[in-house]
């Protein structure tokens, strides 16, 4: 190779037609969407001014007298998220065992996986809309909607985790004469446990966001308070509520992230620090993000 004289200048870049075509199609689709969508573009130019006005009303200054009420509404939302996630865990755990390859035959496995897939595809809000017709507008309805929504994700993450464990202990327990349940208990569960606990917590974080959304359609909690105040344009209260939502979500994410980190990495570490510091953290977070892709909430 060294005998070949160095070429003058760079070799020409190969033209990648398939890629070019794909880019062109994407561009056309985007342009078509812009062209066809039913929007008064003049609204867009007016938007910054209007938004600025609303922001000034919201935060200049916010109405702190509503803070206690806002906090108790938030607590209700968090309770909804916790209880819903817990029911989701209780229901999805045995189901995900039955959906694990190697433990159950296909005819048992596939229907369960199908149910998980359907539950993942329906947005929580739609589930809640359906539930409202049965149990009415209560926080319990919201919790149930979250429970049903989380069964899909938790179930899928569950069987994926169980299938991804190291086969060694599994074979060993099997060879020692364990029954299927015993294989599960001693061959699979010990290695799957940290991941399972971690994604339970992660799902709780998602549920906290979902519970705020469910409030928006009337299921109680901070979301309901928000939508009421937005509708009546009580902007200074909305400002307080926004601050509360942001702060509480961030605090819960930090706590939950710290615990998840402790479960998986085995040491206490603030997630912010880890994220700034290194590669492994980035990779792990990416994996979680990929898992979140299943449900569509981050």
């Amino acid at each position: 190779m060294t005998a070949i004289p160095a070429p003058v200048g760079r070799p020409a870049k190969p033209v990648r037609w398939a890629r070019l075509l794909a880019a062109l199609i994407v561009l056309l689709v985007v342009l078509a969407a812009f062209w066809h969508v039913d929007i008064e573009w003049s609204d867009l130019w007016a938007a910054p001014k209007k938004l600025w006005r609303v922001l000034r009303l919201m935060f200049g200054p916010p109405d702190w007298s509503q803070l206690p009420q806002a906090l108790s509404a938030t607590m209700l939302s968090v309770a909804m998220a916790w209880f819903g996630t817990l029911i989701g865990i209780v229901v999805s755990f045995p189901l995900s065992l039955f959906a694990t390859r190697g433990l159950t035959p296909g005819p048992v496995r596939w229907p369960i996986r199908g149910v998980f897939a359907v539950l993942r595809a329906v947005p929580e809000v739609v589930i809640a809309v359906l539930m409202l017709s049965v149990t009415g507008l209560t926080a319990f309805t919201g919790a149930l909607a979250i429970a049903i929504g989380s069964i899909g994700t938790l179930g899928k993450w569950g069987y994926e985790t169980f299938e991804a464990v190291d086969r060694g202990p599994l074979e060993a327990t099997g060879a020692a004469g364990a029954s299927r349940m015993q294989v599960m208990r001693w061959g699979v569960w010990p290695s799957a446990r940290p991941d399972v606990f971690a994604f339970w917590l992660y799902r709780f974080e998602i549920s906290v966001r979902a519970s705020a959304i469910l409030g928006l359609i009337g299921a109680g909690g901070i979301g309901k308070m928000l939508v009421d105040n937005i509708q009546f344009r009580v902007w200074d209260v909305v400002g307080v509520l926004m601050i509360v939502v942001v702060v509480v979500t961030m605090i819960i994410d930090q706590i939950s992230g710290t615990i998840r980190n402790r479960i998986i990495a085995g040491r206490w570490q603030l997630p912010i620090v880890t994220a700034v510091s290194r590669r492994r953290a980035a990779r792990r977070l990416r994996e979680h993000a990929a898992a979140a892709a299943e449900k569509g909430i981050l």
Partner: protein
Amino acid sequence: MSAAVSMSKPTEHPPPAQQRPVRPRTWWKAAAVLVVVAAVTVWSAIAVEVDFGALFRNAGNASRTIGQLLQPDYSYFPETVRPLLETLETAVISTAVAAVLSLPISFLASRATDPSTPLLVAVRFVMNVIRSIPDLLYASLFVTAVATGALSGILALVLFNIGILVKLVSEALDGLDRGGQEAALAAGSGWIKADRSAMLPEISPIYISQTIYVLELNIRASTVIGLVGAGGLGMLIDKVRTFYQYHYLSLVILEILVLVVVLEFVSSYARRKLVR
């Protein structure tokens, strides 16, 4: 060790206490965790006023509703075409806008490409705040403050997407091999040039794949943001549910299901091709 001992005398049980190391005692930790979890659960159950009885009391009501839901009225389909298109357009436009905006922000939000710590911290903080507000909340704000319809939906989704995309892409940047960038810096280029020539080509497959993922999220999100008046299928859901037209509602939900599943399929195919 213990394996070797028991191999040599398979019939005798070796006294286990001397063979195995003593297990660390962790039961009290587990118990403490359990107590905390149980306490939070009891508190949450009281707060949401758990009433499983209501499910059975309303069972008659439910079965009627479910009966109607199981018979979607396909003749309603023509009415849903416009909202369906609007949902798709909202998703596509907001993905495109967010993709363009979030690329430079991602470079500012990664330790690997942004040498200035104060700027990094500031950008990340703003992004954290943006991310912690749910999309429907943005939508309802914009609907009230700007205008009803697709525009508010697009604005809401753009904000929501920037939060996600910047997080995913900047974290991918953190994990990249920085050799090329170092070489560029050593050869005398500035940070912007080094990032563009060395980091951008490395990140682009991930960037594109995450953009497709965000499009997928948007399809899901844009079906529901209409519930607060931001256009698309959600507005239709709101309309038919206030009139208790469950035959129509189930058709709309069916459409959402098909849309989401098809898109998930396409997106996972495209992403697989990209990563390969």
